[in-house]
C-alpha cells in the first residue's frame, strides 16, 4: 500500500491556505498549515513533511528565509508561491534552495501537477544493469552512455556532465547561476549565453523537435527544467 504523503503549506493568507488544504486533501495528501516562516519551521521540525509549499512574502519570517532554513535541515522539495512575477525574487528563492515555483493566481491542476513531479523526483530511480533509468532516459555513468527512448545518443563530455546534472535534479527549476556554477565553476556564473549554446546543442541531440522541447524546458529569465517523463 502506498503511504500518504505529507505536505506543509505556509502562507499568511487564511483564505488561500483554506482552499489549498481542501484541494490537496482531495488529491489524497495529508496537509498541515502554518501562517508564517517562523511557525512553518516549528511545524517542519515537529511533523517532517514530504514536501513544503510556501508563500514568499509573509510578515515576520518570510519565505526566502524559510527556504534557506529548511535547506540547512533537509533535502525535502520546496515549492514556492509568489504573487509577484518579478524574476529576481524567484531566482533568489531558487538559489536559496527552492525547487520550483507557481505564480499566483494558479489553477489547482497546475499546482498538483508540480507537486506530483517534485514528489516523483524524491522517489528513487530504477537502477537497471545499464545504469540509471527514469522516464524515456537511460544514463550509464560508467560507460558515459545516454539512451533516449532506447536509442543511443552521442554527447561531448561537457554535454554528458550537463545531462547528468539535470538528471540528478529532474523536475526542479534550475537557475542559470546554479547550472553554470555546477558545470563550469563559480567563475562562470555571469555568462548565461555560454549555457544557451550548450542547451541548444543538447536539445538537437535529445529532442524530437528542438524548437518545441519536451524534456528540456526553458523557464523564461530564470533557467531550465528537465523532465525525463
Amino acid at each position, binding site marked *: 500500500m502506498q503511504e500518504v504523503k505529507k505536505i506543509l503549506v505556509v502562507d499568511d493568507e487564511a483564505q488561500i491556505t483554506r*482552499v489549498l488544504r481542501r484541494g490537496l*486533501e482531495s488529491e489524497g495528501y495529508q496537509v498541515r498549515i502554518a501562517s508564517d516562516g517562523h511557525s512553518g519551521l516549528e511545524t517542519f521540525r515537529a511533523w517532517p513533511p514530504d514536501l513544503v509549499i510556501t508563500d514568499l512574502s509573509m*510578515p515576520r519570517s518570510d519565505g526566502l528565509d524559510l527556504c534557506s532554513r529548511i535547506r540547512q535541515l533537509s533535502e525535502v522539495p520546496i515549492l514556492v508561491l509568489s504573487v509577484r512575477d518579478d524574476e529576481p525574487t524567484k531566482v533568489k528563492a531558487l538559489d536559496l534552495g527552492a525547487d520550483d515555483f507557481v505564480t499566483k493566481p494558479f489553477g489547482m491542476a497546475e*499546482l498538483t501537477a508540480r507537486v506530483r513531479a517534485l514528489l516523483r523526483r524524491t522517489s528513487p530511480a530504477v537502477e537497471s544493469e545499464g545504469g540509471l533509468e527514469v522516464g524515456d532516459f537511460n544514463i550509464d555513468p560508467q560507460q558515459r552512455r545516454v539512451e533516449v527512448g532506447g536509442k543511443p545518443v552521442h554527447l561531448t563530455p561537457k554535454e554528458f556532465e550537463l545531462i547528468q546534472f539535470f538528471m540528478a535534479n529532474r523536475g526542479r527549476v534550475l537557475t542559470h547561476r546554479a547550472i553554470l556554477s555546477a558545470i563550469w565553476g563559480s567563475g562562470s556564473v555571469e555568462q548565461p549565453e555560454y549555457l544557451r549554446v550548450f542547451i541548444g546543442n543538447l536539445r538537437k541531440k535529445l529532442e524530437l523537435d528542438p524548437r518545441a522541447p519536451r524534456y528540456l524546458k526553458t523557464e523564461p529569465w530564470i533557467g531550465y527544467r528537465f523532465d525525463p517523463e
Partner: protein
Amino acid sequence: MPVRSPNGHAWRDYALATLALAALTAVLHALSGRLNQTSIALALVLLVILIAVRAGRGPALYASIVAGFVFNFFFIGPFYTLRIQRTEDLVAFVVFAMTAILVGQLSSRLEKRVIQAEELQRSEQLKTALLDAVTHDLRTPLTAIKAAITTLRSGNVGQEVQQELEEVIEQEADRLNHFIQGMMDLARLEAGQLSLQSRAVSADEVVEDALLRAGSVLREREVETAIEPGLPQLQADPRLLSQVLFTLIENAAKYSPPGSPIEVSVKRSRDHSVAFAVCDRGRGIAPELRDKVFQKFFRAGAQPGFGVGLAIAHGIVQAHRGRIWIESAANGNGTRVQFQIPAGEAA
C-alpha cells in the same frame, strides 16, 4: 512667482530680502575702507543668489534692483548720491546690475527645476508603491477564487468541502468589492469629494456591522466587545464609520499572533464625543511610527499589500470632525487604536 513659499507668505520673502540686504550693506559699509569695489559687488551678488535659491524669482529681481541702488549709493563715488561721475564707475554699475539680475533669475530657475525633478521622482515612487500594492491586494483574493474553482471542477470533493469552497469564493468576491470601494473612497477623499450620508446611528450598529464584515478575516479569532450602555447617538455615515472600525479590526487580526484575543470597546469621552478603541496583543507600533501609519502606502514591517487602510480611516474620521490615534495597549503589550467622533446634536 516664489517657488517655495505659498502666495500668502510672499511679503515675508520680500521683507527678509530687505533685511538681509540692509544687514549686508551695514557690514560692507563698516568694512569699506578695507575692501575694494569688486569684493563688495561680489558679496552683493552672492546675497542675490541666496535670495533667488531660497525665495524664487520675484524676490531675486527685487533684491538685484535694490542691490544696484545700494551699490551706487554707498560704494560708487560721489558717495551717498545716486549720481555717477566717472565712466568706469558707470560701466561697473551697469555690469553689476546686469550680473545681479541675470544670476538671480538663473539661480531661481535652477532651484525650480530641482524641486520639479524631486516631485517627479516622488510621484514615480508613489506609482510603483501603488502598483505593487494593487497587485498584491487584487491577486490574493483572485488566487483563492481560482484555486477554489479549479478544485471544485476536479470533481473529487465531498458535499461539505464543496460548501466551504463556495463560501470562500463568495467571501473573496466581497473582499475584491470592498477593495474597489476603498480605492473609490480614497480617490474621493483626495479630491475632497467624499460626501457623508449622515444619519443618526448607534455605536452598537457600527460595531455589529464591522464585526459582520470582519467575519472572514477573523475566522476563529476571539473578539471581546465592551460597549458602554446609554451612549448618545452619533450623527454619522454608518457605512464609512463601520469601514473605519473594520480596518482597525482587520489590522489587529493581521498584526497579532493567531489565537490571541482582540478587544473592541466603545465609551463616552470628553467633549460630548464617543470613543471607539481596538486593542490587540501584537508586537505594537514604535512611538515614532505612530503618525506615519496614517500616511498613504506606509506599512509597518514587510507586510505586503495596499497600505492605505489607515489613510482612508484617517480621512473618514477627519470628515466626521473626529480624531484617530495610536497608543500602546494598557499593559504595554500590543497596540490600541482609538478614534473619537462627536455625538450628534439630537443627543
